[in-house]
């Protein structure tokens, strides 16, 4: 048994495993050193964990768009990060408008719903258009081709919104009812974080039930299994794919608002990094798998907020928080190399992967 497994191991495998091992040892060593150092108190750690959970919720929601599309088309929708940006950026203007007419503080729930609707609508429209123009005509092209159009669409959208709304930063107004903090069981939550966590969980449940229990969800799952057979069964494949993009777009738009509640500044480049991290989450959880996206998002959020302090401080790296993105990308690289099927994903066959 061991012998047959060892026979398949090549020199490159050994090198890759060695690099992984070095990083793992570094992480553990760093963690032990940090804990022995005792630089951070218990409440600091819980704060970091709560921050990570909120961040993870946002990543999870964006990751859903990647997962849904990958599940159905086996392609990475590279432009999804710009779908996220477009809704959030546009909704900022709606929020400012509502603030100016005084609704923002007088009718916060209604205003929030309006802003969410605007974001979801814009993002869904953008996602729909991207699919219609850039992906649908190329559905049977070689695999590199839709990837290149996706990169093109991503840049086009980024700089279109830069042209439309300007290249400056745009502040998202804070809501009075979200100010302050709440203490549960001795753990301190900012209200904004709580809103984001609850909102993300709620959205995940809604989307999960759409995919699992509705007719269109059934159609989506059928198309992701086999497009041709689904078409023979009377499912309109084009329409189902469009719906998938709209659904993923809407959830990205809502994720955009949640992201703005946490980090209240919108700009045309805001999609790139969260988008890449959300993709990491999707792969981490198992791409194509809805609960996996949630799990991956939470794990990545935690790694990113706790990671720099835990792994890197102990190694004596100055200003470790600067490397939080590097941690996320390292996770991305390693998950793709070692287990591209993710935590919950099935082992994909060569043709599918």
């Amino acid at each position, binding site marked *: 048994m061991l012998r047959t497994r060892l026979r398949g191991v*090549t*020199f*490159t495998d050994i*090198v*890759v495993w060695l*690099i992984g091992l070095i990083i793992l040892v570094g992480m553990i060593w760093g963690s032990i050193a940090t804990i022995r150092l005792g630089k951070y108190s218990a409440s600091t750690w819980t704060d970091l964990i709560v921050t990570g959970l909120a961040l993870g919720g946002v990543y999870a929601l964006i990751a859903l768009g990647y997962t849904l599309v990958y599940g159905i088309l086996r*392609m*990475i929708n590279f432009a999804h990060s710009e779908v996220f940006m477009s809704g959030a950026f546009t909704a900022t*203007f709606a929020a*400012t*408008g509502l603030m100016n007419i005084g609704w923002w503080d007088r009718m916060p729930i209604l205003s929030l719903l309006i802003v969410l609707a605007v974001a979801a609508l814009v993002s869904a429209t953008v996602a729909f258009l991207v699919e219609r*123009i*850039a992906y649908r*005509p*190329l559905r049977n*092209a070689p*695999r*590199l*081709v*839709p*990837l*290149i*159009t996706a*990169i*093109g*669409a*991503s*840049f*086009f*959208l*980024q*700089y*279109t919104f*830069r*042209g*439309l*709304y*300007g290249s400056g930063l745009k502040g998202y107004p804070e809501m009075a009812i979200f100010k302050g903090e709440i203490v549960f069981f001795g753990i301190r939550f900012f209200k904004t974080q709580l809103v984001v966590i609850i909102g993300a969980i709620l959205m995940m449940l809604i989307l999960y039930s759409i995919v699992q229990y509705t007719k269109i969800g059934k159609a989506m799952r059928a198309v992701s299994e086999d497009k041709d057979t689904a078409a023979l069964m009377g499912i309109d494949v084009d329409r189902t794919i469009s719906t998938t993009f709209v659904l993923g777009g809407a959830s990205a738009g809502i994720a955009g608002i949640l992201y703005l509640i946490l980090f209240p500044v919108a700009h045309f480049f805001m999609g*790139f990094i969260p988008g*890449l991290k959300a*993709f990491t989450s999707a792969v981490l959880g198992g791409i194509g798998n809805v609960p996996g996206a949630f799990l991956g998002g939470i794990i990545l959020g935690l790694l990113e907020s706790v990671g720099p302090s835990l792994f890197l401080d102990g190694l004596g*790296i*100055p*200003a*470790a928080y*600067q*490397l939080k*993105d*590097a941690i996320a*990308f*390292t996770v*991305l*690289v390693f998950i*793709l*190399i070692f287990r*591209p099927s993710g935590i919950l994903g099935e082992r994909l066959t*060569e043709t599918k*992967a």
Partner: protein
Amino acid sequence: MVCPPFLLSLRKIWRSALIGGGVALLLALVGMVGTFHSRSVINNVVSVGQVLFLFPVWYATYVSLRQMSEERKKVLIASLTAGIVGSLPLVLLLLIGAGINLRAMFVNASPALYKILTFGQNLWPGVLVLIVVSALVTLTAGLLLQLSSRWQRALIQGFLWLFIAGLMRDLILTVTNRWGPLAGVVQFFFAANGLTPLGAVLLLAIVIGLAFRPRRQVESQPVNSRARWMVLGGIALIFLFLPQILGPFFSEILDNVMMYILMGLGLNIVVGYAGLLDLGYVAFFAIGAYTMGILTSPELNAHPLTYWQALPFAMVIAMISGVILGLPVLKLRGDYLAIVTLGFGEIVRLLVLSDWLRPWLGGTQGIQLIAQPKIGNLTLQSQVQLYYLFLAWVVVVVFIAWRLKDSRLGRSWMALREDEDVARAMGINHVTTKLLAFATGALFSGISGTIFAAKLTSVYPHSMNFLVSINVLALLILGGMGSIPGVFVGALVLIGAPELLREFAEYRYLVYGALLVAMMLYRPEGLWPEERRKLELHEEEFVESTSVAAETE
């Protein structure tokens, strides 16, 4: 209810005109119309901005009309109404903009834009003028279609050259002013801004005349090798004297173009030959530049080397880093490979930026005082001198890339690109083959980086961002993946042209993005395609046409 066929086709035309109008609206709101309004095609008659908001509707109408087969009167009616329908999005913008201040959201929805769209009139007369002009413009599409196809082609070519000449007025004059007698002739065509009306008419007549010149039937016969060498020699001569021909104003731009040609030739091996989509390609450029910086800058190094001493180290380190990147991603294919390389590029950038590695890499401040290359007593520091350094490297790299292409290694790369499993079954060692592709690509990019560092005598992490990788990828796709002349074409068009039109700079990546999508949709093989890839991409058509030919025989 049964629709008469004419109404049906009318609806189709209106729909595409409306899409054209939507594009025009987008161009207006993004700010391109406003920015380009200051540049004239024909002085005081037509501005580039006006072309930008009228052309989309015209083009949409022309394309959809071409598919319609109706009698003349109906075509003219259709084209006229298409212009009215197509102007509606802009009319809507004007009407809304008159009531509400859109500027709070759309930064470009300014009175200045409205003035351009209404041709300087007030709101209502302006709207009327816009609709009428739009209808007249699309009417020309209908009229054009009445002509013979030869006339159509000649006219389209004429107006295209008119547009390009007007757009590039400043450049053409800067170049030709250096060439005494030519300057007088050229100046006759141009006004202070764009072409003169008389010059425009003349230019149109010349191009149309040229389109009708008696043409020999070009048979598709194998080009004889002597003619090919002469063309190649001609191109080489042009490149050799390019700084002298174009003048000092262009040297900086030429350096940039050459830098991207070097990188493009490297990525061409990775993506074009071996089919490995690398989105973190800038990392190798950065590694080349930083190695040069670290080894030669007295800031970080007690014993600074000279450029030529440091060069071999930089080359070797770039190659090794290519192998290091290549090793873990050997098993990955397609999109996952792209994402992993993108992640690598970002990690490299973040590490360079961090305080952690600042003592060695200079952090956000970068590295200054990098050595300039010296030959004997001559320090290569002016842009023209550096151009020749770039050119020397380009010649070497082109030669290597060209020889590699049909070598055993090159054919192995292409085999892996087409089908990895089959290639491996045929006995190709995928590990060394792929690693060699990464290493060669990294080497070329690293060389480009060393000259970049020597040129600026400093490197900053901010100049090593993801956009550089996208630039290289875009020029490769425009020129044609796997094609060496394609790299030159792509770099000249995508890197050279934007630097020449300073208004364009702001919309550069918008246009690149649209270009990537459009190329993939309409011409995936690129402008100067490599033969084999062209065959692959049009395999079905090829098979179809040969089978049809076989049947008719």
